[in-house]
């Protein structure tokens, strides 16, 4: 095998370009991958439009101008060797995120006999060793992604009312279906109680109550506004040639969009009063306990690395205090962990317990928080947490989707994710800084789903 030219830069860094549409293109060449991952990301404010924005990808996937229904869309994707297409609606602090993605098999894995839909002549393939995706495949994929987002089926200038009604119903079912997953339901209920007066309270898929006032004309108007004004970040990662893919993207995304939708800044910290307790009854076998804390440590100032270390020591891993004490020592739960939210400045502790063990579990959990605050952290806990976090960072290099997400979130906070520098800062966090970060934790809400 001939030696291959490797990109000289940091393997995880993205090269960035402006597209003729005005949007930003982020490219990363990773020779080890068998597929090319394309993600188009849109960020807007989380506000009263949350429900209709969540509805958009659901209606968009029903048909484009060229591919009039879902079946035609899926047949087309099957022709591209079963390209994986998806959309995702999420929440980053008080921002709302829409993501459209497409993953195609790299052309060099496609058997020559078969070839892609509308395959190229074998001679063309031989000229350049078939190791990078053929422009044909990637062009089709990019064209399709553009079509799904910007060229929907609009008979008579508006979304098909039949599709809109069906997808409204599907969204209603999905929102109401949150209750089927008791742990997730309990988490969202805690958020809602804790952040009652804040934008963060909103569930990313929206409210059933909003659906009544959405109809095809209103949704179309919302779509046109979104499609014109919401800026797009287009990420592509795989065994790609940056120059040619850049050219390809410039050809596909050549329609100028204003992309001038204003975006609010990261949320300001909220003052905490006395902790509140909320209980809800349901016919469940297991109680779900969620504790919501505020820490107010964000990307800007604050000690982000110490926050991440503190969360690791407290509850992110099986070796963490929560898992060891609530599960392994007290035998009260199968799962007990914490998760940190960095944009809004929150931390949640979650566990599933027998209802009668509520007081005991709560007491043990709060003891663990107090222990970290008091710096009662062993050398083993420090080492295990640091090593686990560093390992996690190393493994990011294998995961293009996760890298895209991290890159995007840091940029939303006006910063660049510099992995080597971040590693160095993380490795330096000591016990005192962990305790100081824990000292910022203020218990806001205790939510308990019980029978």
């Amino acid at each position, binding site marked *: 095998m001939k030696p291959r030219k490797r990109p000289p830069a940091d393997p995880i860094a993205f090269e960035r370009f402006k597209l003729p549409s005005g949007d930003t293109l982020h490219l990363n060449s990773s020779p080890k991958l068998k597929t090319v991952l394309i993600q188009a990301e849109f960020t807007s404010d989380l506000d009263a439009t949350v429900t209709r924005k969540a509805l958009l990808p659901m209606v968009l996937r029903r048909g484009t101008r060229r591919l009039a229904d879902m079946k035609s869309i899926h047949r087309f994707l099957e022709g591209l060797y079963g390209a994986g297409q998806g959309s995702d609606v999420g929440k980053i602090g008080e921002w709302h995120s829409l993501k459209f993605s497409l993953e195609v*098999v790299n052309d060099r894995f496609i058997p020559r006999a078969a070839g892609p839909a509308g395959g190229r002549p074998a001679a063309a393939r031989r000229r350049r060793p078939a190791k990078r995706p053929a422009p044909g495949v990637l062009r089709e994929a990019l064209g399709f992604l553009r079509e799904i987002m910007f060229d929907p089926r609009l008979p008579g200038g508006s979304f098909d009312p039949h599709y809109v009604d069906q997808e409204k119903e599907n969204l209603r079912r999905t929102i109401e279906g949150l209750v089927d997953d008791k742990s997730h339901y309990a988490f969202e209920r805690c958020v809602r109680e804790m952040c009652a007066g804040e934008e963060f309270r909103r569930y990313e898929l929206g409210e059933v109550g909003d659906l009544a006032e959405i109809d095809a004309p209103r949704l179309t108007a919302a779509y046109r506004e979104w499609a014109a004004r919401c800026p797009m970040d287009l990420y592509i990662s795989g065994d790609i040639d940056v120059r040619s893919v850049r050219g390809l993207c410039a050809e596909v995304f050549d329609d100028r969009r204003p992309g001038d939708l204003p975006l609010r800044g990261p949320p300001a910290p909220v003052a905490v009063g006395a902790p509140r307790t909320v209980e809800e009854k349901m016919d469940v076998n297991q109680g779900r306990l969620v504790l919501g804390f505020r820490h107010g440590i964000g990307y800007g100032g604050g000690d982000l690395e110490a926050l991440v270390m503190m969360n690791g020591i407290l509850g992110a891993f099986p070796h963490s205090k929560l898992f060891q004490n609530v599960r392994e020592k007290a035998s009260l739960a199968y799962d007990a962990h914490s998760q940190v939210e960095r944009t809004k400045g929150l931390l949640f502790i979650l566990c599933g317990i027998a209802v009668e063990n509520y007081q005991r579990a709560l007491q043990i959990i709060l003891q663990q928080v107090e222990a970290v605050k008091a710096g009662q952290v062993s050398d083993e806990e420090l080492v295990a947490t640091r090593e686990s976090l560093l390992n996690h960072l190393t493994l990011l290099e294998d995961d293009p989707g996760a890298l895209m997400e991290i890159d995007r979130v840091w940029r939303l906070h006006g910063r660049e994710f510099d992995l080597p520098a971040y590693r160095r800062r993380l490795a330096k966090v000591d016990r005192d800084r962990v305790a100081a970060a824990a000292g910022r934790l203020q218990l806001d809400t205790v939510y308990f789903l019980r029978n």
Partner: protein
Amino acid sequence: MPRSPLRRTTSAPPSIERWKSRTLKEEVLRTILPSGLEVYLCPKPGFKKRFACYSTRYGSIDSVFAAPGEGEPRRVPDGIAHFLEHSLFETPRGNVSDLFARNGAYSNAATSFNTTTYIFSASDRFFPSLELLLWFVENPTFEPGRIEKEKGIITEEIRMCRDDPGWVSYMGLLESLFVAHPLRIDIAGSPESIREIDSDALHRAFRTFYSPANMILFVIGDLDPAKVFEFVARRTRFRERDGKAEEIRRVYPAEPARVSQAEFTRQMEVAMPKLLLGLKETGVPRTGAPFLARDLQSELALDILFGRGSDGFQKLYEAQLIIDDFGASYHSAAGVGYAAVGGETPRPQDLREAIFKEIKRVRRAGISRRDFEQKKRKFLGGFIRNFNSLEYIAGNYTYFRFHGVDLFDAVDILESIRLKDVEERVEFLAGAPSAASMILPRS
């Protein structure tokens, strides 16, 4: 047949065998240690992640067995394979997760119907973690106080699953489909059954199934094969063939063709009803290429019937009988198999009828060659995509090895499937004994 993408060669050093797939551009190397333990390595140049999984061919369906040297097979408490998996994590040196974390590695384990698997992933300092994996899986200490604590933890795990409508409907389906086969038993057992588990029972299960010739170690990552094989050979406690694997007698009761009950319903705190329709068969190939072929043929048939690009999916979606989570899959174990079709639905009985109707319609109308070829192409693409995932490769390679077939063969087997095979699968689905599992909201 087109040219085979599979080449099997034996190369130096003599004890190492090598499988290559040209289609996937992957290779796997194997050595068999004197103990009979099979060690596999899949080199993944450029990947930071290094991953290992140590598996035994032992799962929840091995509920009646005779250990080597025993006379009559005995029935064990439900959930013991899973309980054993939990117990291995407790060692005199502390909890295993903790020990892995000190190397920056992440560990976990899982018990399925027919396998138990212990995994870790790491980047740097891979070998200390590999040593730890071998050590904790091969050297159990079943300390009575700890066993009691584990009962509390697993009871909460079972309670959690009993609140999960997906799991409840799935187990409800298996209970309904099977009359005698241990697939109908919950992998974790019940709070009552695990109370019977003690250190003797755990030792007996361990002695029987954690025998080197019944196990596979699969390692994957940017690693030197010879170094890995040599390391494992030095560090494993298994030195020589103990002959146990050959002596294990697993008893699976004869399963009749009929189902145990046609319908399972359970009321739960859910927003929308859920239907899982099961279609059952017996006499399924247990091993080798026929096992894998049956799996692929069935999945192809189900995708043609109910996949996203199918008329069936379109119709059901348009009729608002299904939402996004609707799907169909095929599974088999120890000679029995079933297709499961379903998802959330406002009208479970109507969906049940509509599924049958669609199967019968396709059986009458037949499958177009174009459709068939398109689905094969989609499957091949999906298969190649999966090979980005180290966990997928390790887990599935091991799983199919336990069934006597090489995962790389899947490309060839897929290629060799004819339209007639898939039509035969539709025929089976149209005539199979069936059961429906339904979760209904409390009202």
